[in-house]
């Protein structure tokens, strides 16, 4: 009898321990999960007012320097019809975000979902207060870029004719513009599949140089019209940078669009060739200037082609065809 009672109490004890252990493990799991998901961490709120809420959803990740620091808490429509997106972010990151920070909507990787990117802002300025309203920036779409290139193509003739007047300045081998063009050459040489990133850096450097040239235009005392022309030229080149970034984020569907851009670059290049011949009639020296511009476009085209061929599509460098020297058309008197 005693033995059977002992047996029952021992079983009860074992079951008790088992249940306690189970509950303990469950609590531990909940604790770990909550710690990892920052359920109990202190939060702060920031707001952003995008033009439309169509690209946002509640719970959408907000990243800062590549780290997830929170998500969208609420999306609401204000009385004035303005969209208000409330971002719930971890308090411990607040000291890192300064005034001047903006929110951008971007695609994560080639096929990834869209996320919000919070920039650091101006580090010389104080950190953001809880409840601050941030500026919203849209990533430049390829369509916009191509649209913005169109006027460039249309204006190519004017651009080149005016470039002719700039020839003396440009023909100086040590001029900033020459150095920048050399920079573009470096880019097209360096684009080899995996080092697209390096090429982008190189491109950014070149654009900075071009920016510097444009900034110095007033000092060069060039006529206003010519200065505008060079600015226009610079803007054409600048369009390549966001395009490359968009290529990185939009993936395969971009290829068709980049083909369109390539077509524009080709058109611009072709018109450059025609202008080159026109310029030669005006002054032999000018041919070199226009040829240089054409060479730059050629390099832009090469850059685009290499981006398409090496990275997204094939992963290998484009096949090089041996270049054949062109033959002049035969001169025949075909008059009947």
């Amino acid at each position, binding site marked *: 009898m005693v033995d059977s009672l002992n047996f029952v109490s021992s079983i009860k004890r074992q079951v008790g321990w088992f249940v306690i252990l189970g509950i303990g493990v469950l609590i531990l799991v909940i604790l770990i999960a909550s710690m990892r998901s920052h359920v109990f961490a202190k939060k702060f709120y920031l707001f952003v007012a995008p033009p439309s809420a169509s690209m946002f959803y509640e719970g959408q990740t907000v990243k800062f320097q590549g780290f997830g620091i929170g998500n969208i808490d609420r999306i609401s429509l204000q009385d004035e019809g303005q969209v208000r997106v409330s971002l719930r972010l971890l308090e411990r990151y607040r000291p890192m975000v300064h005034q001047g920070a903006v929110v951008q909507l971007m695609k994560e990787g080639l096929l990834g979902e869209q996320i919000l990117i919070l920039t650091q802002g101006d580090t010389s300025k104080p950190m953001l207060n809880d409840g601050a309203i941030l500026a919203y920036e849209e990533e430049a779409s390829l369509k916009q870029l191509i649209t913005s290139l169109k006027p460039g193509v249309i204006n190519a003739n004017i651009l080149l004719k005016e470039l002719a007047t700039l020839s003396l300045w440009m023909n100086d081998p040590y001029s900033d513009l020459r150095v920048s063009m050399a920079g573009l050459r470096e880019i097209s*040489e360096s684009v080899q599949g995996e080092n697209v990133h390096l090429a982008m850096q190189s491109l950014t450097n070149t654009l900075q140089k071009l920016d510097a040239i444009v900034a110095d235009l007033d000092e060069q005392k060039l006529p206003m019209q010519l200065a505008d022309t060079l600015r226009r030229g610079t803007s054409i080149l600048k369009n390549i940078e966001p395009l490359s970034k968009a290529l990185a984020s939009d993936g395969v569907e971009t290829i068709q669009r980049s083909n369109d851009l390539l077509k524009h670059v080709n058109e611009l290049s072709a018109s450059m060739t025609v202008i080159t*011949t026109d310029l030669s*009639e005006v002054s032999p020296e000018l*041919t070199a200037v226009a040829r240089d511009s054409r060479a730059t476009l050629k390099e832009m085209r090469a850059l685009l082609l290499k981006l398409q061929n090496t990275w997204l599509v094939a992963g290998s460098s484009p096949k090089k065809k041996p270049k054949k*020297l*062109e033959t*002049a058309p035969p001169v025949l008197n*075909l*008059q*009947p």
Partner: protein
Amino acid sequence: MTRRFITIVLFVTWLSACASGHKTNMPTIENPYLQHLHDFTHVGVEAMQQEKWPVAIQVFEKALNMAKLINEPATLIRSWYNVSMAYKAASKMQKAEASLQQTLSLAQLHHVLADEIRAKLQLNLIHFAQDRQFEEVPALPTGLAADIYLMAGKLAYLQHHEQHSKQRYALAIRASGEDRVGLSSQAKALLGLAQLAKRETDAQLAKNYALKVLRICHQIGEPRLSAHASLLLAGLPHGLSQQEALDYARRAKNIYVLLHDKYGQKKAEMLLQKLIKSSQIFR
């Protein structure tokens, strides 16, 4: 047996790995003079297409200098030929002939058959216009470029070798590509065939060829060829109404006026007067 099989499989795998995995990180080295040569030549060809002869001469001369610096026979020969075409188009016949002689001697020395034939055909075309003795042209092999067959077709036409001319124009059409240059060659060959048909009094065939030329010209923009085709159509003895013939003659004249082609303009005007007279008689 199994061991042997495994060895073969491993060997094949290794071979295929070698074949597919070989990648070179060697940087591409390009001769800058060659790049300039291509650029100058491209601009020269464009200038030729736009009939800007002084520009073509200037640019092809620069290309020739680049070819001399590159010091490679094939490019040098082609550059001499290109510059000769620009001289010929600008009616600088002496310089054109001298350049063609250079092309010919270099092509013979380095056994570049295509350029040798080109030079000989062009020299013969110049000599024909000056009633001089002909160069002996080697038999045309197959697989030559369209421009060579075009020149050969024209020369045969001038020499009244109609069958040869037809064959060569047909070969020119076959050898032409579908790009702008190719279509331009096709249009020239079709115009040549139209002239042959007209000579053989087959007005309908001549009309068909000439209309094809006009279609291509409309596509690629070759105003001079278009004027030639219109003039040919206007001058056909039958196959077109009086009104149509007058219209083509007027269109041809307008183009020649715009192109400052005095000779073409005169021919078109003469034909126009003839057509107007005949229409008045008809009334």
